[in-house]
């Protein structure tokens, strides 16, 4: 079995590489959107006086995450079709992954932005910062590590969910798996699964580095002193 897998990989590396590239593209596209939406929405709902709204948004995002991906694709296909948009292929998958990726980013952004030590806020306000200045100069920089952690979670999670997108023609590494299932070729299923896992692990490690680098130096653990 291992040898057939290896043989497949050596003979089809170009094809596997292309699928990996498709996979990454879908995940990054979706998470790029999720980050923009999540940050904007997260910052918007973490303003003082919007606690109720924040609860609601987080609740809805949480429910979305419990919808099985295949069902969500189905629902989105119907909606997109009704809207006259492209209803199969990459579009519904990207939209679905964006929705899934939203929760970890939203949740981390709001808890971090709202959970800043009140002494920081008081110091900022007492020195004459406006609420907007406090948001951009204090709250958001202090929330960066948590936001990055949320993004990392979202990306790793979406690598797995994106595999199922091949079922509705979005391409990516899921194709190997679905073809393997259709032709009862376990080696193909395993190659696909292995690549998805390796991709998830690789991205997790790489994003861990990015997360550390993007953390303001004073907030990094293990600063001297």
């Amino acid at each position: 079995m291992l040898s057939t897998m290896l043989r497949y990989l050596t003979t089809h590396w170009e094809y596997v590489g292309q699928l990996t590239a498709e996979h990454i593209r879908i995940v990054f596209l979706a998470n790029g959107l999720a980050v923009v939406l999540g940050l904007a929405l997260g910052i918007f709902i973490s303003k003082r006086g919007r606690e109720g709204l924040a609860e609601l948004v987080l609740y809805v995002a949480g429910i979305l995450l419990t919808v099985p991906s295949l069902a969500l694709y189905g629902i989105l296909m119907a909606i997109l079709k009704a809207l006259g948009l492209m209803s199969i292929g990459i579009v519904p998958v990207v939209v679905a992954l964006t929705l899934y990726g939203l929760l970890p980013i939203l949740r981390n952004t709001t808890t971090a932005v709202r959970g800043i030590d009140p002494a920081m806020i008081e110091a900022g306000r007492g020195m004459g910062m406006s609420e907007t200045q406090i948001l951009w100069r204090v709250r958001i920089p202090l929330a960066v590590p948590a936001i990055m952690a949320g993004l990392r979670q979202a990306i790793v999670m979406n690598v797995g969910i994106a595999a199922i997108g091949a079922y509705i023609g979005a391409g990516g590494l899921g194709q190997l798996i679905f073809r393997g299932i259709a032709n009862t070729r376990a080696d193909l299923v395993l190659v696909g699964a292995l690549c998805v896992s390796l991709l998830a692990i690789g991205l997790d490690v790489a994003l861990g580095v990015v997360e550390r680098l993007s953390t303001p130096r004073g907030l990094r653990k293990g600063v001297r002193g």
Partner: protein
Amino acid sequence: MIELRDVTKVFPGGTQAVDGITLVVHEGEFCVLLGPSGCGKTTTLKMINRLVPLTSGTITVGGRDIQKLRATELRRRIGYAIQEIGLFPHMTVAQNIATVPRLLGWRKAKRRARVRELLGLLGLTPVDEFLRRYPAELSGGQRQRVGVARALGADPAILLMDEPFGAIDPITRERLQDEFLRIQREIRKTVVFVTHDIHEAIKLGDKIALMKEGRLIQHATPSQLLAQPADDFVRGFVGTDRTLKALRLTSVREIMDSGPLSVRDDDSLAAARRAMDRLERSFLPVVGEDGLFLGWVGRNSVLGPPSVCVGDRITPYAVLGSPDMPLNEALALMLESATGNLPVTDEDRRLVGLVSFDRLFESLRQIYVEREAGEGSP
């Protein structure tokens, strides 16, 4: 100048935190808000920079009603050091200190020069090293200093400080207080300083405003507060040892007998004996040719042949006082010393004065007399 007139604060829950306070803090004055926990000190302070909106009354800063100013502008003109220090952990020490200058749009070169000046002023040296550090890389005492430096950032005329030397060990705390006093003598800010520590209040304040349950009970200088407590609450708050506290307020310089009579080490014993007879003293200080204090000569040791000089019969001194020493320390030293006289010398150990027990008791008695008089009147 800061002026509070009939200022009241009732929080939304119904707590009356401040109840009709009227208080004037003059230009360059160091006013301490003192009182037990929950008496409304922080609330009073925060109303001055509008972090807490007032319920009624008026506050003016530099003659202008704070309600008529934009809150952010008002705050940028008032230095503010909070109890929790609240340094921004994602910013360097330099960026923290330059917060208000940046808000005011100072140019980079000016900001940088100001940061260096303040680091030097607060003893955070080498300056180049501290500039680049993050709050996590500082000790507690250093963080307090940066907190004070940040409050001084844009050189405001007014400083509001809420227990800025709170959470540090007593020794570092004393040192910070001393340094802050030195700085304050130099920069002469109008300061409102919150503490619940009577010792800190006495040490730092030109005036003390003692509060209780949101009301101002007594507003007076530290010595007035000690000598003439307005009521039992004040008496209880300043403590049973207020005589000793009053001693802390007076320095040796104020009561010492300056330019005391002394004998030289090359004087003859006979001359010393004559001087003792004339002054009716049994001990005299001995100084060298250069005025350096050498020790004492007593009546028992001046009996001897005329050829012997005082220098051969010196009793070494046990203790020395300095002009800036508070009287409580002087008293402690005298109780240890055999002579009941404290020689006072300058940094070069030249004799500049003497404090005798009689002198000390006289000043103590005055404190008592003042107090009796104070308590007798309504």
